[in-house]
């Protein structure tokens, strides 16, 4: 399975600011996925990031709020923009494992907005 390095692991941010989360994968992958897990809740897919094209956002998520970059096949960033306390969540990136059709998740970024 791929190994994902996700940074930062946690942060406390002021409302109105932005935070960029990075995911580095140890192998080349076509798609990377970004999820949000609100406190005590399940995971919700934010967007799918393909290298060389615009990310595809799920209903309820927009590019202005969650811009994503995918400059190459091993790296992606998610920015949480103009943050409010409602953005306090764990954000996780994920990639597929072509060998067993499974998915590997990064260690997560625990974001608290104050």
């Amino acid at each position, binding site marked *: *399975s791929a190994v994902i390095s996700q940074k930062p692991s946690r942060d406390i941010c002021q409302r109105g600011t932005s935070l960029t989360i990075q995911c580095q994968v140890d192998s080349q992958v076509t*798609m990377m*996925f970004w999820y949000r897990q609100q406190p005590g*809740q*399940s*995971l*919700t*897919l934010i967007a*799918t990031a393909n290298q060389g094209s615009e990310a595809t956002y*799920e209903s309820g998520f927009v590019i202005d709020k969650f811009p994503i970059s995918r400059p190459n096949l091993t790296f992606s960033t998610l920015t949480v923009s103009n943050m409010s306390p409602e953005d306090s969540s764990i954000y*996780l990136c*994920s990639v*597929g494992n072509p060998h*067993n*059709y*499974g*998915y*590997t*998740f*990064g*260690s*997560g970024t*625990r974001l608290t907005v104050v």
Partner: protein
Amino acid sequence: ELKVEQNPLFLSMQEGKNYTIYCNYSTTSDRLYWYRQDPGKSLESLFVLLSNGAVKQEGRLMASLDTKARLSTLHITAAVHDLSATYFCAVDMKGGSEKLVFGKGMKLTVNP
């Protein structure tokens, strides 16, 4: 819209006991995943179920998939405290979109 429902959402059980938890989903899919999450941690993959009738076992956990019934079960045998965690099932939307839809998760507490 694909919906994934887990039952129960909370479970407190004694060590040594057995229990089965359920994951239902609303549309056709051949791929179902079980994950474990410890507090403050990321998701750990437990099982990948890829076809009707698939059964996989790891230690005290056994998962199965019935695609006709759109149902997966996760059976716990002789529970131990270390199994305390939240367990999520997730379904891959049909067509290989690679988008996972997660259930709400089941918080398991195993008491000594």
